């Protein structure tokens, strides 16, 4: 036997709805999640089961539908507010965890000797630039010398960046790109030639 059996007439359905609305109020007051959903489902059943479809019964159905929707809307609003209230703390925790991830990634890089390798490679490139500079000095060609000085300065700056912990990776990676492949925007106004002068 269901709870809808034996209900007769408008008065019977009105009493049933009054009982459901009382339960809905209690569920809201007690912040009882399961009770709220339970009453909302029963209000839906009330709408489907109440009969005959007289204007009075339709008014009761409208009231039941409005109550079910309001009950669920309140749940949605409350839970959205709860999410909003926790967002700031979660964002802070996310930042903290990202920082831990960065530290862990840096540890892995350190174990891989990545920075040591970078510094040695940059140092090698600086020495190469220094050798070119020496060759340019020997050539007595002002244009070649100027380009070579600029190249040398760039390499020394790279070395400084590589050694310092706050090195700018973008600057280093830009230098790693073959010069021919660079766009005009990234190229220096005075191109640094790495080829040795024709006459020595």
């Amino acid at each position, binding site marked *: 036997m269901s709870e809808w059996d034996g209900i007769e007439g408008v008065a019977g359905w009105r009493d049933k709805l009054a009982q459901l609305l009382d339960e809905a109020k209690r569920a809201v007051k007690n912040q009882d*999640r399961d009770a709220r*959903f339970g009453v*909302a*489902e029963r*209000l*839906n059943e009330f*709408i*489907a*089961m*109440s*009969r*005959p*479809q007289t204007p009075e*019964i*339709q008014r009761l*159905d409208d009231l039941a*539908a409005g109550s*079910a*929707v309001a009950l*669920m*809307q309140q*749940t*949605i*609003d409350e*839970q*959205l507010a*709860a*999410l*909003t209230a*926790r*967002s700031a*703390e*979660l*964002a802070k*925790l*996310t930042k*903290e*965890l*990202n920082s*831990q*991830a*960065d*530290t*862990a*990634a840096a*540890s*892995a890089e*350190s*174990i*891989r*000797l*990545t920075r040591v*390798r970078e510094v*040695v*490679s940059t*140092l*090698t490139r600086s*020495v*190469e630039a220094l*050798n070119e500079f020496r060759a340019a000095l020997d050539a007595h060609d002002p244009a070649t010398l100027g380009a070579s000085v600029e190249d040398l300065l760039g390499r020394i700056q790279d070395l400084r960046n590589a050694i310092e912990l706050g090195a700018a990776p973008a600057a280093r990676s830009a230098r790693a790109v073959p010069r021919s492949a660079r766009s005009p925007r990234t190229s220096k106004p005075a191109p640094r030639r790495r080829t040795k002068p024709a006459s020595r």
Partner: protein
Amino acid sequence: MAYREYSFDQLQLALRSSSATQRNFVRGLLASLAALILGGCASLPSIAPFVEASSQYRSAVVASGAVVDAELIDIGAKEEAATFGKEWAVRVRATDALVSYSQALESIVASGAQGAQSARSVADAVTGLASAVGVALPPAATVGTVTDAASFVYGQIAAVRASAALGEALRNATPAIDRIATTMGLDLNSAQDIFDAANVQAKTSLVKKYNAESAYLESLRDARLAIYRKPVRTSADEERLLQLDRLEESTRSWREPKEAQERALAARRKAGDQLFASARGALTAWSLAHRDLAFAVESGRKVDVTALVASVEEMRGLIKRIQAL
């Protein structure tokens, strides 16, 4: 464990030599030294299941957000859907951090396993530097022997460094991980409540839409029940029952679409609720595995990832089901 003692002359001789025997001599000597200094090498746990679980958990959080959004849109709650989307993005970013963090842990473990290779890369770079400066290097075979030996020793050092780094990373992140797990557990509850509430509202709309038809059908059933309750049925009653059958049959045109919509709503609700339950379970398994991992690194024992792997499989299946709905 007994350690042999070697004279400086023996070592120099080995470095000058290119024979495999002498290479092994140097390797053996340096390995003994490494073992003595480092006190044995730590074996690192596999982080791969942890990374996979993090990634799958992220997918579950994204899918959970999508089902809530779809349910809110379905009831016309666009404003609520927008607010939810904004708030849920914060949760997705938190799971991004979980993925980055677990990948960083995996990177530490990998770096520990690749110590010898890293040392070889540095040796190559140093050789390049020496060549650029014009330093005359010893014969290639001698350089190779020294590089081999140094790579071997650094392999051991890297494993120990990785173990220490992993332990430190796990220890430092545990408070944040635990709080994220607690907060996201509450968030999943909130999201499920929003999803369920929107689903009930959709059901209310459906019930209201077919209210008159449903009442008519119930009145036909009342009439049939009244005849069944009679102690003796007349021929008029039998005729009336046949008429009621025909009338009820005529309700099929609206009843079937209504029932199909009810089934679809119920299927969405069931799949969504299972997804939320699974995501909560996976989150718990993830944070427990994290604690277990920290303990395993400290104590040098293996990590049991059975629960974690099972939760990943469950989530994968549920996400597919949700996407198919």
